[in-house]
């Protein structure tokens, strides 16, 4: 089993399916990349959700404020012109659906996994760091001429196979 390909395919399928079903949008295929270490500074909206079990990690969606507003508008069929609680909630739910679908796919191969409640950050020039030194699988999409990114890092929990806590991550502003 090529786990990296399995995760990548699942992320792509889940993202396209969620965009199509919940937003009525067809995303063009994304570019797959691997990212190690801490990513560079972020601007915009970043949403995180933890995965726990025999494998643990974090899933993330990063988008611009304009895209976040559009996600909210398309999902709720309301006008959203500024990033507010509804917009952040819509991005959190989009993340929950994408990473939740990936989690369900992976459970067939990795065993039962748990999903945390999503956390969303909106700001400028902030950095994020996931505990541990794991590799992120990154799918870079171009949506309305702006980058839209879905990321996942997942690693076996060798020291404690019964761990129930997802990886922690820190946000530096």
């Amino acid at each position, binding site marked *: 089993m090529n786990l990296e390909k399995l995760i990548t395919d699942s992320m792509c399928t889940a993202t396209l399916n969620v965009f199509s079903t919940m937003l009525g949008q067809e995303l063009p295929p994304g570019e797959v990349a691997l990212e190690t270490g801490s990513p560079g500074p972020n601007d915009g909206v970043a949403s995180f959700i933890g995965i726990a079990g025999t494998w643990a990690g974090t899933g993330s969606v990063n988008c611009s404020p304009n895209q976040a507003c559009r996600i909210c508008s398309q999902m709720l069929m309301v006008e959203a012109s500024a990033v507010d609680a509804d917009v952040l*909630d819509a991005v959190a739910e989009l993340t929950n659906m994408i990473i939740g679908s990936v989690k369900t796919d992976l459970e067939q191969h990795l065993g*039962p996994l748990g999903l945390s409640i999503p956390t969303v950050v909106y700001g400028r020039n902030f950095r994020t760091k996931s505990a541990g030194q794991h590799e992120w699988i990154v799918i870079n999409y171009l949506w309305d001429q702006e980058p839209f990114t879905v990321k996942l890092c997942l690693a076996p929990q060798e020291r404690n196979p019964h761990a129930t806590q997802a990886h922690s991550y820190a946000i530096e502003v």
Partner: protein
Amino acid sequence: MDSDVLVVDDSAAIRKILQRVLRQTGLAIGAIHEAGDGVEALSVIEQHPVNLVLTDINMPKMDGLQLLASLKGSAQWQKVPVVMITTEGGELKVSEAVRLGAAGYVRKPFTADQIKEKLAGILAPALPL
């Protein structure tokens, strides 16, 4: 007779989407109440008895499976159908929900047609105007 519904999800976005979808189903829907977690749901249903509960699973304080178990363990609410609407599509969660007495299971992301199809066997159709 219109059916009152309780929508339970920690995402306000999903609660709004489900409210809209419920109104579009063509089923006889009355009042739609909301709760952000299982604890709040139990409080709301005490004040506003409903004919159907739609609930997420992953929620803070009390999750959807705990809420389902609590409702099915209550003499007052055990006959109220509970439909799970959740990203949790794993076999374990589905079989646990079925074992606890869930009337249905819809995986997110969902379409309006999937919700309608699932509820059609549970709720009565709306009377023609």
